């Protein structure tokens, strides 16, 4: 089984795009950038509480936003179009930001003003009923839920959406549920999709209830079903691969027009009933997206705040060269928040087998210097583990004392190497060949040399980066990477990254860690049906994997956005690292 990095690619893309001129800039927002004493208070303050809601929490309408009113048009200025809108083909976060108002799912997250999340029934009456220790799950659909043409959303549509995930043209969506429904990672061999007229035997429908029989216990299955890959698709309106161009809406807005890479207009779906929806407020009448606008241009327009741009926002972070100006001139229109991406540097444990060497690498690592090059504090808070503060159960820890010395401790590293008899150890550091990474490479090289390592650097074409580092026999010792969880429980962090089953070619266990104790801990936490207990177990696992020295923690990544003066309640979705369309409103 392999997992992916849906938000993380976006996160890193944003960083790459915004940092091309970082070396020439010195942000005013550089507190705690260098030197010791960096504290983790920010990450702690932003840690999101995730809980499972009741049937009552799943009832609509969504709580009103104070001062908000209906009406108006919101303008979105973005450089890239959505890569997919067919829910089954949605995996990456920025697509989900749009899907949140078009494609409802069985469950989803109700996000409070303080950023805390409650998993609730979206199309379902509650968050599902679990049996057999998590192997059987049932969901019942609400009354009054309709497609944009006015027809009812049925359990057949829910089943059809999931069965479409098996079709040969759906190659981009998530694949967790398919694997669990068939018991095989090669799920297409077990079931070819719904177009031959056959249904999956592991899904049963009766009236308004749909039941899933899984091949393994999945106590957090209700979290997984919040992914848009598992949204329903109307059986009668399925246009197969063409569905991507104009999916049928079940949410508060529908697509009026969409020209790839150019523009998209969303208008109200009159068949959406707010009384069935506990999550979405849907205040604006319309959303106009314009694509192809450079990040810098978009922010300049938002800074100028003229005409229609007063009603605009962007899903791109503010580029480094405009952060100071934005924070000075438009402070009340700038919002900064912790995203769910965690940046780190993997240590290839199949090559660097000596734990003392890994410890020396971690001690010597110039985290502060790297962060400074990437924009300082706005880049993120110093990380101490791999579990994001936005994942349920997060607990602060600092196994390696990196918060005290984020700039690195060459003296301590040298001492560790000496003690282990590994002075002058040759480290092969791989990096993506772009100007920004070239600068970072120099900082890392100098820091490791100062700690007594011999450093060999290898540049890799950025387009094949993941292909190269994903090779089981890659010839690198340390390489950059990171993670964003697909849903906010520990399973989607630790199983893909540290289960020894994933030490395969192009697998997600990039550190190649094979540790029976870790495997056992993952298995135990996965099987735990009490979510509170499971969360505690995942938090303990965060400390346990950090102690193996399989990775060098870098930062919990941050986001900084801005919007026009005539928009209210523009807030970031902690799941998808972008603003929530369904909560913002147009001011009069």
């Amino acid at each position, binding site marked *: 089984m392999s997992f992916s990095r849906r938000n993380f690619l976006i996160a890193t893309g944003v960083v790459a795009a915004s940092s091309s001129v970082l070396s020439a800039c010195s942000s005013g927002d550089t507190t705690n950038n260098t030197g010791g004493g960096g504290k983790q208070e920010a990450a702690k303050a932003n840690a999101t509480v995730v809980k499972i809601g009741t049937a009552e929490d799943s009832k609509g309408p969504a709580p009103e936003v104070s001062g908000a009113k209906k009406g108006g048009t919101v303008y979105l200025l973005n450089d890239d179009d959505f890569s997919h809108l067919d829910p089954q083909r949605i995996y990456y976060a920025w697509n989900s930001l749009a899907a949140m108002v078009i494609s409802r799912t069985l469950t989803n997250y109700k996000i409070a003003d303080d950023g805390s999340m409650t998993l609730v029934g979206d199309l379902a009456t509650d968050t599902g009923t679990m049996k057999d220790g998590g192997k059987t799950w049932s969901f019942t659909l609400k009354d009054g839920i309709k497609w944009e043409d006015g027809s009812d959303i049925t359990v057949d549509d829910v089943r059809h959406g999931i069965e479409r995930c098996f079709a040969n043209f759906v*190659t981009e969506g998530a694949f967790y549920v398919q694997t669990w429904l068939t018991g095989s990672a090669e799920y297409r061999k077990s079931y070819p999709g719904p177009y031959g007229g056959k249904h999956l035997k592991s899904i049963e429908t009766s009236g308004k209830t749909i039941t899933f029989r899984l091949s393994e216990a999945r106590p957090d299955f209700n979290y997984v079903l919040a992914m848009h890959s598992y949204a329903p698709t109307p059986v009668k309106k399925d246009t197969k691969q063409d569905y991507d161009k104009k999916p049928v809406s079940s949410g508060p807005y529908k697509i009026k027009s969409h020209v790839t890479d150019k*523009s998209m207009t969303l208008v109200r779906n009159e068949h959406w009933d707010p009384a069935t929806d506990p999550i979405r407020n849907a205040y604006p009448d319309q959303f106009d997206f314009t694509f192809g606008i*450079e990040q810098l241009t978009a922010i300049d327009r938002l800074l100028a705040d003229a*005409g229609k741009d007063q009603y605009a926002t962007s899903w791109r972070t503010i580029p480094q060269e405009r952060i100071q100006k934005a924070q000075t001139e438009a402070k009340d229109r700038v919002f900064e928040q912790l995203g769910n991406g965690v940046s780190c540097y993997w240590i290839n444990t199949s090559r660097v087998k000596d734990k003392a060497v890994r410890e020396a690498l971690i001690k010597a690592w110039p985290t502060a210097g790297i962060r400074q090059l990437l924009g300082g504090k706005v880049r993120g808070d110093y990380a101490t583990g791999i579990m994001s503060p936005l994942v349920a159960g997060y607990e602060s820890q600092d196994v390696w004392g990196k918060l005290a010395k984020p700039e690195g401790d060459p003296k301590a590293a040298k001492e560790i190497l000496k003690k282990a008899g590994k002075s002058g150890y040759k480290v092969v550091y791989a990096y993506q060949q772009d100007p920004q990474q070239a600068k970072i490479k120099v900082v890392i090289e100098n820091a490791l040399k100062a700690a007594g390592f011999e450093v060999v650097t290898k540049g890799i074409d950025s*387009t094949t980066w993941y292909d190269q580092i994903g090779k089981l026999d890659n010839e690198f010792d340390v390489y950059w990477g990171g993670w964003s969880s697909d849903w906010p429980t520990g399973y989607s962090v630790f199983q893909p990254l540290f289960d020894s089953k994933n030490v395969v070619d192009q697998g997600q266990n990039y550190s190649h860690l094979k540790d029976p104790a870790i495997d056992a801990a993952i298995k135990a936490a996965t099987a735990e049906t009490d979510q509170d207990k499971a969360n505690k177990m995942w938090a303990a696992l965060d400390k346990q994997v950090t102690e193996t020295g399989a990775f060098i923690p870098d930062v919990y990544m941050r986001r900084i956005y801005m919007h026009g003066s005539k928009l209210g309640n523009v807030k970031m979705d902690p799941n998808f690292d972008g603003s929530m369309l369904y909560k913002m409103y147009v001011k009069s």
Partner: protein
Amino acid sequence: MLRFLVRRLLGAVITLLIISAVTFMLFYAVPRDPARIACGKLCTPETLELIRHNMGIADPMPVQFWHWLSGIFLGREYPGFGNCDAPCLGYSFVNREPVLATILDRFPTTFSLFLGSSVVFLVFGVGAGMLAARKQGKATDKVASSASLVASSMQIYFVGTLALYLFVYQWQILDQPGYTPFSENPGQWFAGLLLPWLILALIFTANYTRMTRSQMVEQLNEDYVRTARAKGLSGPNVFFRFAWRGAMGPIVTIFGIDMGVLLGGGMITEKTFSIQGIGMLAVKSATNNDLPMLLGVMVVTASFVVLANIVVDACYALIDPRIRLA
């Protein structure tokens, strides 16, 4: 005239065939896997396999080119992606759309940009050049010549960005550049394109001013102009009927080249003003390694240049009766 056009069109077809073959070879004969490039950064093994199959990577290069070429007349099917009806210039695996459909969608924007800016730079450029020639050696001539020298040394990415900052962001006297279809709202179409027209025209005007002035000065010193004057024809009559007509040839030639280039997409202009025309499409395709789209844009752009040259050649006969199309 008909024979001339038929002959030139046949030549154009051969030229385009060579251009497309060379471009195809360059793109697809690179040492890297073109399917992997087309698949992009967010590539899954399954998507890659589908793209490989659809691109016919296993086939020899000439067979791949033949499939691409025959698709223009017969259309092609891309299992797992969609159909591409004739004329099919390929399928973008990044956009998940037939290449031609995307190009046709962007064309009105690029055409509008070309149309408006052409009107501005032809009127002002040729006008200023004529004025400078008429007032040769006087202050008007010196001002026009100096201004054109300054303008021709400007760069769109500099002047455009500055103009955006001043006129749109700072003083807010011009609309945010953008494209609205003329049929939808002529007023918005004009307002959204005004700044790009003016900036693009500023650069081009300078060339036309200088070209027109030098051609007019040359023509005004020709014997036939002196003869016309000696015969008692009025100054304006000589200037417009004789000298101006004689000077038009080289200007039309330059305009023909510019027309091809501008219809192929003013990349820097479109990028500066975030206008989604063919130029931006080319830039985006190059950035995304979208080879099928890039190939389609190259072929269409080359077609514009070739066709513009045919139009220019045909125009010669109309402008200058001394030229006969044999």
